């Protein structure tokens, strides 16, 4: 039986074993908790470095790394005029929908998607269970080259993601909000809208 070790909550060391047929074992041991992903500057710098290298090697226009929940982690290249927040959310939605489709067809995943436009093309690659690599390229490059270079970069990226997850695990909640009072929260929300 194929068994995958799956992280359920980012902030705590909670793992369950996902059997190929989607049985969740040990799930009863998991408690509900608020979890979070924490991205520190060091890992962000490393991610950006890999994105920049891939950009050059693949002759791409833009490289973006995000998580499956639509949070952008790093990017490189030409992002002017591109709403990266909206793009990250749409890409995550697209990957989620495609994963649902894959499961309907009895596949675990469609790990890569290519979209072809008149001027710009897009390659989306799923990296592990939690992350997505997006490469935008034009006529100066080709799908074959982009896929080849993306595959090479994905190994480095997966190592960095492992570090991010380990550090998020060790961080028992970031102490950003512990000292703010009810009045602070009230003011923050009150001032915002």
């Amino acid at each position: 039986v194929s068994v995958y070790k799956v992280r359920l909550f980012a902030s705590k060391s909670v793992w369950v074993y996902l059997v190929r047929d989607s049985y969740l074992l040990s799930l009863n041991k998991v408690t509900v908790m608020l979890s979070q992903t924490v991205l520190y500057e060091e890992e962000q710098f490393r991610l950006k470095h890999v994105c920049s290298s891939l950009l050059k090697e693949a002759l791409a226009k833009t490289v973006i790394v995000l998580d499956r929940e639509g949070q952008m982690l790093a990017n490189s290249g030409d992002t002017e005029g591109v709403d990266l927040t909206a793009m990250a959310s749409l890409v995550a939605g697209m990957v989620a929908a495609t994963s649902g489709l894959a499961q309907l067809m009895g596949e675990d995943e469609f790990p890569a998607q290519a979209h072809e436009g008149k001027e710009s093309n897009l390659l989306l690659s799923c990296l592990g269970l939690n992350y997505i690599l997006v490469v935008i390229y034009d006529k100066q490059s080709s799908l074959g080259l982009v896929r080849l270079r993306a595959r090479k970069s994905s190994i480095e990226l997966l190592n960095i993601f492992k570090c991010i997850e380990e550090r998020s695990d060790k961080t028992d909640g970031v102490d950003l909000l512990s000292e703010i009072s009810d009045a602070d929260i009230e003011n923050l929300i009150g001032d915002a809208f």
Partner: protein
Amino acid sequence: VSFINYSSREIILKIVYCGPGLCGKTTNIKFIHTATNPDARGKLVSLETRQERTLYFDFLPLSLPAIRGFKTRLHLYTVPGQVFYRASRKLILKGVDGIVFVADSQTARQEANLVAMDDLEENLGEYNLEITKIPFVIQYNKRDLNDILPVETLREDLNRWGVPDFEAIAASSEGSGVFETLKAVAKMILVELRRAR
């Protein structure tokens, strides 16, 4: 599942609007978009069909003032309300920090409200989450229409947990109740994050 980025000094919180088809989830988000200072909002992404049904989701990023030097951003999502979009609803709920359930106050839509609430509970259950354990508010929308149920009846049927609830007319020019609902859930998330530390 809040996301904290030390490099860009940002905290990102995900709020999802749920509820039956055509209850006004997208109308809530659109009102927030029009009534928010352009500097504090991002692009509204709306994937609607011609019949104003949300096909996949709506998405609106908003900025709050900084907390201890960290910019706080709210990512608002709506899910498609129609029963047959259950799979995409579940996907959008992944990583949610707070939920707004928008109920349609019309008598004829009460059954749809109840079905949507059951569906939400089931979807959350699949992520091992419980309504009572995450920031959750209910909005009784369309209070201006004829043939609506009294708030007491809606509350009795839908608000079994006694969570904060609000009356709203999201489609009105003042969008009454829309910001009250959003503020309440955002506040609950921040309180919960502080408590979780």
